[in-house]
């Protein structure tokens, strides 16, 4: 089979931490008056609902 192109993954910079990424997001949210605290998910039920 022919290769489309090599997949490109989601990568952080060598010195970039997860907290740094979320801090950028928080700053943007805060700039428009949105509470950046993670709201969590409303769990709809147990079990894997991944489409088959």
């Amino acid at each position, binding site marked *: 089979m022919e290769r489309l192109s090599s*997949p*490109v*993954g*989601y990568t*952080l910079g060598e010195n970039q931490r997860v907290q740094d990424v*979320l801090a950028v997001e928080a700053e*943007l*949210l805060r700039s428009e008056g949105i509470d950046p605290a993670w709201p969590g*998910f409303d*769990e709809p039920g147990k079990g894997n609902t991944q489409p088959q």
Partner: protein
Amino acid sequence: MTDSERPAQPGASEIERAERVVRLAWLSLPAPHRALLEAIGAAQWQIVDRSLGTAVDELLVSAGHPALPPRARRELDLALGVWVQELRIIVVHAGHPKLAGLDDATYEAFIARTAWHEWGHALSVVRCTPEDIAAGHRMLDLAPPGIREGIRNAGYRSSDYTHELVAETYALLMARHRRKASGRPLWLNNEIYNLVTRVTGWSD
């Protein structure tokens, strides 16, 4: 288990933990977005506990595709998530070193963000035009500084800039959506917003 007691190396429980978050992130997407992702074959995912270069290479070869070139494999080893177009699947590395030691809220926020990023990336790869790709360098200059620097410092090629910008913006719009915010955020350039709405179907 406290955060300080959490193991640096994941086991089955860590994979289950990431699986739960990705499933909830999927269910948090607006229904038309899920339909669009299903239409392009980007509605499946797999959580793994090893480097993505190795994991994706094995998945490709076992499905009859060529092995990854060594450079692509090395680059993918650094990634937290990836959409593999040939296999129509998103793969997330639950044991990535950058995830070690995170508290529960940070972990959940970031795994969800990674999943949203990859779904945005998949839509971008399938639906962007060659002109969109060619405009990546210019479009990145229009992005919020923190987003722009994050993409530049991660070592992507300029030909990846459009996809990464769409993916990052999509993840940010989903972060707002989870907090009941809608419309174009003031910090987002109108040209980028128009690109993301066209490519991903974002409509709120």
